[in-house]
């Protein structure tokens, strides 16, 4: 993950990205063929359509960005759904100029709690974040009385999520900003090296003097923060927050990261892959919408696509020693 592989030789990390990109193109083509045959038009290739997809993709993309960082250090964050929802609900409840800072603060705080429990208490992340998710849900249910809060998103939130600047959706700018920060961290900053080192061999990183526990807390904090950002945008887009708004983002985020070539066990993966994974999932969803595919078919295709892609490049080595 340091020097780029020279020339056209595709390194082990580039292959999944190339394949995912090819698959993305294949979906576009298949969808276009379908709409041409059925409707006589090619809406999938229109810039308006593609921009709209990217705007929707921004929400998933931001969540996936944070999730990737956590997966890289061989952990996972299952508390994203209710962290996102809590951030959204508290933002709309507080309103005014404090809405967004509160949401980000919640995301950050939850991430830090996750990180502390996992790094210092060594509770497996799968189960700790599960518990935190349940606690966040409990807090929100108690707070809202079980209903969707009536309070509305602030104009700033709405603007960030739904409006455009120079014809480009603002949400896309937010996604780009998040992406730039993540890429800078992963590729240029020492923190990024430490992340890959821990994901590869935590013992060796520790003995090399890397502060592995601090890095773990930071990674979960990043993941919580991105969940908070996504919560702000989602609430802005729908004008309100609602129960369970974050549930639909957890598994697709994990899938996007994995489809993009990041190893679920950590230590390997490039952000470009996650980007492509997100776009692939969003496109797939929308193509299936256009085809009027019922939810049943969508789920089945979704699952099959993941398996197919992983068969092509996600195979792990047989354990022999």
């Amino acid at each position, binding site marked *: *993950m*340091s*020097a780029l*592989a020279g020339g056209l030789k595709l390194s082990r990390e580039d292959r999944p990205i190339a394949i995912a990109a090819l698959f993305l193109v294949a979906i576009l083509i298949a969808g276009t063929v379908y709409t041409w045959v059925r409707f006589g038009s090619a809406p999938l290739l229109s810039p308006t359509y593609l921009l709209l997809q990217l705007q929707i993709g921004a929400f998933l993309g931001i969540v996936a960005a944070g999730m990737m960082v956590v997966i890289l250090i061989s952990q996972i964050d299952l508390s994203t759904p209710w962290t996102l929802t809590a951030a959204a609900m508290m933002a709309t409840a507080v309103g005014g100029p404090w809405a967004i800072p509160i949401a980000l603060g919640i995301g950050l705080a939850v991430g830090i709690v996750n990180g502390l429990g996992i790094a210092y208490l060594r509770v497996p992340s799968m189960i700790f974040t599960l518990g935190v998710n349940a606690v966040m849900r409990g807090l929100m249910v108690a707070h809202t009385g079980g209903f969707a809060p009536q309070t509305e998103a602030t104009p700033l939130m709405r603007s960030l999520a739904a409006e455009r600047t120079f014809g480009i959706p603002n949400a896309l700018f937010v996604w780009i900003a998040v992406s730039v920060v993540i890429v*800078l961290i992963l590729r*240029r*900053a*020492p923190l990024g*090296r*430490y992340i*890959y*080192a821990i994901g*590869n*061999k935590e*013992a*060796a*990183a*520790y*003995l*090399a*003097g*890397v*502060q592995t526990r601090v890095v773990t807390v930071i990674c979960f904090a990043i993941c919580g923060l991105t969940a908070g950002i996504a919560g702000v945008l989602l609430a802005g887009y729908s004008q309100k927050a609602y129960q369970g708004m974050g549930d639909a983002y957890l598994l697709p985020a994990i899938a996007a990261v994995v489809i993009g070539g990041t190893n679920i066990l950590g*230590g*390997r993966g490039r952000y470009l892959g996650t980007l492509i994974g997100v776009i692939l999932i969003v496109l797939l969803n929308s193509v299936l919408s256009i085809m009027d595919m019922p939810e049943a078919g969508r789920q089945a295709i979704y699952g099959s696509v993941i398996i197919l892609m992983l068969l092509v490049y996600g195979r792990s080595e047989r354990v*022999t*020693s």
Partner: protein
Amino acid sequence: MAEATATDFLVLSGIAKRYGGVRALENVDFACRRGQIHAVLGENGAGKSTLIKIVAGVVQPDAGTITLDGVLHQFRRPAEATAAGVVCVFQELSLIPDLSVADNISISAPPKRFGLIDTRAQTRRAEALLAEVGCEDVNPLLRVHDLPLSRRQMVEIAKAIGQRPKLLILDEATSALTSADVERVYSLLARLKAANVAILYISHRMHEVDALADRASVFRNGRHIETFDEGTRTTSQIVQLMIGRDISTQYPPKPDRQRPPAALKIENLVWENRLQSISLDVGAGEIVGLGGLDGQGQKMLLLALFGVLRGLTGTITVNGRVVRPGSPSDAKAHGTGIALVPEDRKIEGLMLPMSITDNLAIASLKNLLSGPFVDAGKERRAVEAGIERLRIKVGDRADAVSTLSGGNQQKVVIAKWLMTGPRIILLNDPTRGIDVGTKQELYRLMRELADQGAAILFYSTDYDELIGCCDRVAIMYDGRIVRELTGADLNETNIISASLNIATSEPAAAPHVATAHG
């Protein structure tokens, strides 16, 4: 080279094996007979482990044939080798820690009743086999991870003989054993020999080979050099075959000077029951060795100094300042400047799938920044400097460090630490598994670093290294330093007796030429 004869049981012909760019075995012809103990000798990296793995079916050879009792075989997995009567006791144990001793002993073909495992019959079988190796006191119901290492090794041996081998291979099987258990293994091997089992015995301990073997084969750099009957070669001849050149290892000369002031001062270090009040000084420019039998606390001392152990009491002073490293990050910090070259480079020293550049730079990234980011130019220059100084043989710096040979991997670990500019360098058995050429380079490097002012604390299981490299050697026994040897007192006799905690007032023996044998 010994010719295969009609009475040979195992015959290898033309065996070759490559790992990436490294030729582990090349055109090996080898034979051994039933009812004999056949020793396999060679330096680390000579190809012994690979040979054993091929015979045991763990890896497949690139070329060559394996013949057992006249029948050609191709083992694609360990189970096939076992079925043919080849049983191997590896250095890395094949026991399952969370299962019981009885489960482990009968792991692959347990006695069954109504299709399910018959635990009572299994326990009885375990008791019988444990008795055969003389370990009746081990309760078969215990989980393996509850047993001490020596007992685990005995269980591994019991498991092996339970498979009724025709060819038994022991790879450094006695390295973890207590002396009592070693005796038990000797008598077991004698019984197996009498039962016409062929035995291949890999060991670095010459006295064991002398005591046990009927024939011996020497390997060097992946080739079979010679096979001879025991007693027909002297130790120095064998050593010469093993290292292939002049007998005396070149150790760099030691400076003759006053003992320098202490850069590292350790006072009354106590940890659990493994370190019992250790006090030691290491001066700037000194190489101090840690010696003694395995497991007397030497590794724990190094880990303690590096901040890995919690609940440590005592005082550590670096250049006059008391320090309390709570983690390796603290220990490596600029004010303290301690570096540790760890025991197991594959797990503790390197991130194998990551590039050579990443592995070299990981400990010193803070020195390679411009602004908040890593400066690619600074990194590249530092990496090149490290590669040059240690003379690491690398191709593309972006290649994974796993593609390097063992010796070069160890050099990467050391170079990584040198890039942090350490004042105190701790080395945990750094030459284990390294070829002779690289070892020499490391000895020279250590002396060079000492001459430049570093304080070096060096743990080694090799007496000759300790004698050859160190200005002083502290022998540890049961968590204490029982003796410090220096000058003329620093000789093999004193090291051995101190290691066994035998008080000796013998004068130093006649000038001792350091020989290089394992």
